[in-house]
């Protein structure tokens, strides 16, 4: 519970706080019905209803986790500019609602696979901040032992399959995971996320064809942030109704900045996929940063556009308004929550900075799996010993 975490952490419990706690705790299990911002647009299926069942606890959890994701991405931005994170760093701020809403609708047995904008989804799947920052800075304690980097986060126990650098290549992988779920009769689904740029990849349609043929529980989610790196969607796609692109596969267009719409759509999609086969979800979302840290993000779109979206459609602001309007917390409490989150992120970064780099011998581990006749032999039948200069 978010609130019990607050009590355990804060050393100073002021009176307004404690009064607030008693008020909040009593409304914890109260169900709340929230109306999504926009109706769903459906292709070849009946759209789900606009009323989403939620609870006050879920509302506060949404706020907290989304604020955590936002803070984490901004911290990653500063770490990149401080040259502690190198290479490519693709940030997800603005799109948090998709990660949060999806997590709320599914279990850890359902698989998620995404492209390179994976930090927040990894966090949603149960990753820790320490793991994330260590991996970004290439340290030992990273989730891929420092050998993957920003684009290669994986968490097998939570069925998070990454983290892929090549645009579109994760969609056939995702359909393969769905195939395995069907093969093993697991009653679980796979969400394969891709962007509006990747929606033009041929392998997507190949995988969709096979998924539809074999009735696989695959859900293809297009996170449409309207820009494929520097190319706007109207310049890259003849048809930007990505949810209709499945042709014979049903689709649903969702407001990706509304976490509850995402939650409702994912719930609907899961049910559909288990009963009837693949479905496409298009999440209409937006990223505030550029494509990656090396892209300022303002050469192909105006700053007015970015700030306009931030003012009108920001996912965290929406949840904040809902929290305040349902009287679940005061402004001050939310601000304190954000301060605490900031501290949490800073602590994780400090801890990650202290973590050592991987050992040189790690260069050669995990290339092959040891075991069944697979040790590489050198001329003297021992394992190939490679020593760094």
């Amino acid at each position, binding site marked *: 519970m978010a609130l019990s975490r607050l009590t355990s952490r804060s050393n100073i419990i002021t009176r307004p706080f404690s009064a607030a706690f008693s008020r909040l705790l009593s409304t914890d299990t109260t169900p709340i019905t929230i109306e999504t911002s926009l109706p769903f647009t459906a292709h070849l299926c009946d759209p789900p209803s606009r009323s989403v069942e939620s609870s006050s606890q879920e509302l506060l959890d949404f706020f907290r986790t989304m604020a955590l994701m936002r803070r984490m991405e901004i911290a990653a931005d500063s770490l990149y500019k401080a040259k502690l994170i190198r290479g490519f760093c693709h940030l997800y701020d603005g799109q948090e609602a998709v990660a949060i809403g999806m997590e709320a609708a599914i279990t850890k047995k359902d698989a998620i696979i995404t492209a390179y904008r994976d930090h927040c989804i990894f966090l949603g799947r149960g990753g820790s901040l320490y793991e994330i920052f260590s991996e970004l800075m290439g340290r030992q304690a990273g989730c891929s032992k420092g050998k993957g980097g920003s684009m290669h986060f994986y968490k097998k126990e939570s069925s998070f399959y990454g983290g892929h650098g090549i645009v579109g*290549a994760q969609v056939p992988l995702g359909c393969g995971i769905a195939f395995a779920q069907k093969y093993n009769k697991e009653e679980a689904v796979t969400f394969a996320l891709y962007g509006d740029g990747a929606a033009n990849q041929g392998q997507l349609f190949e995988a969709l064809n096979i998924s539809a043929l074999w009735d696989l529980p695959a859900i293809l989610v297009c996170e449409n942030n309207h820009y494929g790196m520097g190319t706007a969607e109207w310049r890259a796609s003849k048809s930007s109704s990505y949810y209709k692109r499945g042709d014979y596969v049903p689709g649903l267009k969702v407001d990706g900045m509304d976490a509850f719409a995402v939650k409702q759509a994912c719930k609907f999609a899961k049910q559909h996929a288990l009963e009837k086969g693949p479905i496409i979800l298009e999440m209409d979302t937006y990223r505030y940063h550029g494509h990656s840290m090396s892209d300022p993000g303002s050469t192909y779109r105006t700053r007015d556009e970015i700030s306009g979206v931030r003012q009108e459609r920001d996912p965290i602001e929406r949840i904040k308004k809902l929290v305040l309007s349902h009287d679940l917390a005061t402004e001050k409490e939310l601000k304190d929550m954000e301060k605490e989150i900031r501290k949490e992120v800073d602590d994780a970064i400090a801890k990650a900075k202290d973590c050592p780099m991987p050992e040189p011998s790690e260069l050669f581990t995990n290339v092959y799996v040891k075991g069944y006749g697979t040790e590489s032999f050198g001329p003297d039948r021992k394992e190939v010993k490679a020593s760094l200069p």
Partner: protein
Amino acid sequence: MSAILLQGAGAGAATALSPFNSIDPSKLVVPSRSSLSVRSKRYVVAGSDSKSFGSSLIVRRSEPLIPNAVSAKADTAASSTSSKPGHELLLFEALQEGLEEEMDRDPHVCVMGEDVGHYGGSYKVTKGLADKFGDLRVLDTPICENAFTGMGIGAAMTGLRPVIEGMNMGFLLLAFNQISNNCGMLHYTSGGQFTIPVVIRGPGGVGRQLGAEHSQRLESYFQSIPGIQMVACSTPYNAKGLMKAAIRSENPVILFEHVLLYNLKETIPDEEYICNLEEAEMVRPGEHITILTYSRMRYHVMQAAKTLVNKGYDPEVIDIRSLKPFDLYTIGNSVKKTHRVLIVEECMRTGGIGASLTAAINENFHDYLDAPVMCLSSQDVPTPYAGTLEEWTVVQPAQIVTAVEQLCQ
């Protein structure tokens, strides 16, 4: 072309019915070389490289299989005769047998490819499997190599063991991204969380006037992908053994078959056996020169060997089988004995397997060489359609004889 089953250093002592014992590490370092002295006898080797896996055990996938990395190099001479007569079959039937046995043994093994199911496989390797195992285990895919290879790899991430067939190896070029980036690298980039136990197999090589696009040899393109293993089968015996070993391996293995070798006939043991994935096969021990080859060129070399023997030469022929990693141990021992190396391969000259092998031999065994390593490969041209021209793109036995004579001067 009958396959001569000479297994020198590679043959293990145990038949498949003996109780399984663990590998004694002290035996691993120095092999017994006495078997190499019995050169001209023919052996039918039964259950050579394997220890018994318990005949009817359903092995749970999570149990570690016996690492058969180095078979105990016991004396092979007396104990290698089989107790049962064995059965004769063609190479594609051997592949099918291996595949079927593995599918019986482990319910996670499935086959995916074009026309592998109802049609029975374009080279009949998967014939009858769809009827036996059903459509969910023997999957007919649409023609989308990129996607179904990706799907196989995705399924392998969760623990399935797909055998992905490219109808012709050349078609797998469309799936190169999946094979290189996802298949080879996911184990590394995930820090060891995911293993990709796929087998990617298919026929390649120059056939009978199939044209340029259907005569490709992809071993040279795949060889530098880190994280994959490559093996090439050449006889029904090693085809079945390598297929089984590849399926059981936790690493992604690419099994190269050859279009012209599918109808080779040989008697293979009745007992269950596997072949070591990283071991080379001693085809014919000799003294004068080491000839390294693989796949179809093995037969051209053996044909040339007949001529060479008549001329008084004594070539040692090794089928390297394992294209990645090279079995530098067997090769090295041979080089240390003969001091001359000839590589005969079907790859192109530029950047082929022979090129890497030449570099490896020069780096490691330079002191033992009396002459430069010679490499006979296919010409660097697209394979022409005309029969006579096609013959000249690949290495012919006459060229091998000339090369040996030149090296042995």
